[in-house]
């Protein structure tokens, strides 16, 4: 099967989308961008191919029981990936302990790390063993990082193996785990995953069929902030503004206005009836009011990024916040807290402030036309969506607001569609 790929190298995450010859999506993958776009691109790609293979497997299995089995297989595969990385993390920490020469303390440090890794492993097995694992970040760094933190805090000893020491080892080694290529693709790990679910014949046959399907990559287009750093030929690089426009058009063909709030920029885009960009505006060099701003707020509040929206939605009285300056975010927040404002009300105000800034860019780009599509990571945040709905209503009247649950892939999809055009 001939296929094409679009890769969106964002400042926070890197996404890949694979299309078949007919332009239909057959696989998607995502990873955190780390500081290495080349590797992030390879990982997102490998993840998208794994996704594509699983979809091929899914075509072979039909019954309800089989679907459940497929779910188990996928989770077993994710567990294999996680354990692979965890094992590597453990190895690297061991080496680091060796290198740092803790002297008498050495064996105790080693033992402490060993127990943390063991505990994480148990937790991961339980997580992926569950039929309905709770939602959490799908990136190894986030999932394992928070568990490591927790266990390190539990077992650390201010007079012996301190919390800082344990965390220092983790910080040093997680970067290496993330920045060295590992074999975590479908072909490498699927057999182990099958072992975990005891190789039911039907699944083994489906997997064999899927694994042997040729996925012949005809063209790849890169977009996003990291695009210039990759060895793509010039014609295979597209601006993310064009990709978001085309991707949004593909998801919602009635789209005329697109708002994309990403990690470090916000774009307001107008497209014509075939998804071609006619006008756009984006924030200047200051990333005020972008996704990264919410990241800082989450850090300041000691919360996960995904927890901000739900908490803001509990607000009963939105606090008016003027500044969306990322640098001032912490100060603004502490000031409001010290004035006795409730966290949920402050958060509601922060979300509204972000959207207000986006509204200004939208106005500059030519306003909001029906239909209006919201993309980028921030589109997954219900408080941001809520604020956007209110402000669009107030300023432009009732408009159809489209948000796809897969909106984070919009840019990569647009890139893949450009690749599809180049290949055909």
């Amino acid at each position, binding site marked *: 099967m001939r296929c094409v790929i679009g890769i969106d190298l964002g400042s926070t995450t890197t996404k890949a989308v694979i299309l078949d010859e007919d332009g239909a999506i057959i696989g998607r993958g995502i990873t955190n961008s780390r500081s290495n776009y080349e590797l992030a691109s390879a990982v997102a790609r490998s993840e998208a191919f794994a996704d594509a293979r699983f979809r091929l497997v899914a075509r072979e299995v039909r019954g309800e029981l089989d679907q459940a089995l497929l779910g188990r297989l996928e989770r077993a595969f994710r567990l294999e990936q996680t354990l692979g990385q965890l094992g590597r993390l453990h190895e690297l920490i061991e080496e680091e302990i060796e290198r740092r020469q803790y002297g008498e303390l050495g064996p105790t440090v080693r033992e402490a790390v060993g127990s943390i890794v063991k505990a994480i492993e148990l937790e991961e097995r339980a997580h992926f063993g569950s039929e309905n694992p709770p939602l959490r970040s799908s990136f190894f760094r986030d999932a394992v990082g928070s568990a490591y933190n927790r266990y390190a805090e539990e077992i650390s000893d201010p007079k012996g193996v301190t919390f800082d020491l344990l965390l220092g080892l983790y910080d040093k080694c997680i970067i290496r785990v993330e920045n060295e290529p590992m074999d975590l693709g479908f072909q490498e790990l699927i057999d182990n995953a099958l072992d975990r679910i005891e190789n039911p014949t039907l699944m083994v046959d489906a997997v064999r069929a899927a694994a042997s399907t040729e996925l012949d990559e005809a063209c790849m287009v890169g977009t996003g902030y990291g695009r210039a750093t990759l060895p793509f030929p010039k014609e295979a690089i597209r601006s993310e*503004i064009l990709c978001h426009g085309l991707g949004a058009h593909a998801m919602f063909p009635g789209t005329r206005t697109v708002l994309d709030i990403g990690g470090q*920029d916000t774009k307001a885009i107008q497209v014509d009836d075939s998804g*071609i960009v006619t*006008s756009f505006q*984006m924030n*200047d060099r200051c990333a005020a009011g972008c996704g990264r701003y919410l990241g800082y707020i989450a850090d300041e509040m000691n919360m996960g990024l995904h927890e901000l929206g739900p908490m803001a939605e509990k607000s009963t009285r939105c606090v008016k916040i003027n500044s969306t300056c990322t640098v001032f975010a912490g100060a603004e927040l502490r000031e409001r807290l010290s004035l006795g404002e409730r966290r949920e009300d402050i958060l509601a105000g922060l979300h509204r402030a972000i959207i207000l800034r986006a509204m200004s860019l939208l106005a500059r780009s030519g306003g909001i036309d029906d239909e209006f599509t919201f993309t980028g990571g921030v589109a997954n945040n219900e408080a941001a969506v809520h604020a956007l709905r209110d402000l669009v209503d107030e300023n432009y009247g009732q408009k159809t607001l489209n948000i796809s649950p897969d909106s984070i892939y919009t840019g990569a999809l647009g890139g893949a569609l450009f690749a599809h055009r180049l290949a055909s």
Partner: protein
Amino acid sequence: MAETSAAKDRSMILQKQMIANHYRQLENAPETGDPVVYTFVPGNMNELVRSFGALPVLPEINALQSGMRQKSGDYIAEAERAGHSEDVCTYVKCDIGMIKAGNISPTGTRLPKPDLLLLSYTGCYTFMKWFELLREEYDCPTVFFHVPYQGDGTIEAEHRDYMMRQLREEVIPALEKATGRRYDEDRLREYLTLSAQAEDDLVAVLQSAKNRPSPIDAYFGAVYYVGPIFSSFRGTPEGVEYYRALREEVEARVAAGQGPMTPVGQLDDEKYRLVVEGPPNWTSFREFWSMFASEGANVVASTYTKVGGTYDFGFRHDPEDPLGTLADYCGGCYTNINLPGRVDMLVDYIREYEADGFVINSVKSCNSFSAGQLMMLREVEKRAGVPGAFIESDLVDPRYFSAANIKNRLESYLQMIDARRMGASA
């Protein structure tokens, strides 16, 4: 720049010599006794100043030259330490910082104190504040020449009379007092005659961009071309010589079918013809230009190259009407033209120069230029039927130049033009 002809080199060499000589004359002014008049580029009455035997100093030119030579960052920091806020025009802060740091010109020579600050007010409010600061600094006489804004799009007869009266009653007496010399109208006429000659050649150079490929970049390249006429050399024999040489070189390029020289080489394959509104960024000037040139984008007309005088719609300095022509000149500078007038100009340029689109470089610290630019963007798009791009940078504050952001916007914009072309041909 290997392919440049010897003729091309001549204008560049001439310009370099002219500037160096001028700064040297300024450095020696305390010894030679030449009077020194500070004045601004828009509305500079170089012929009048020269007719009194005075040497002009143009603070914006010093600021932009400092920016190009990577000195402005330190000067701005110096001015901020002296209490000037981050939002103040960065030309002003660069100039103030340069004075505080010893008043050494961008070429390394010492700059003399002014004998007179001649403030032509041509639409930029900041100029008044700027000279207030310099008056404070130098404790020297100041004369204010008020040019009425072209609010209705024209210079009315009473505006013209008002300006001529000011020249007679305020400006000329102030120059006489500062220089100790009498006003000599015949001498002024001589300078004005030479101005008109150079202006003819400049217009021919700028309008050469109507060719395909254009032999010049009418923004990045043309800021060099307008340098002499916008600063100290309008009305001088050196100015005439420079523009004659430049015109010959450009005509030779047209005959040879050559595109402009850019930082990434000669641009013969002109993929996009653009019109640009707004001043350039000076601290990353070459990088900024390269972003255009490396994509095959060439600028065929710009409004910034009209801040020191608008000649391509027919105006020339007229020796027969010395004071009237100075009034007309000042009233016609781009900064003094209202927003509908600026829109008309951009739309005309897009049509006459067959441009694929236009780019607005919005300058963070310049309200005089930036106010109204978004309205202009929409209006020009609507009337000319081509897409516009909006990028943001600054004049001489290196902190306000984000290469990644600007490159991203520019590339997106050019790809948007591509996509529209493909859509149109499908």
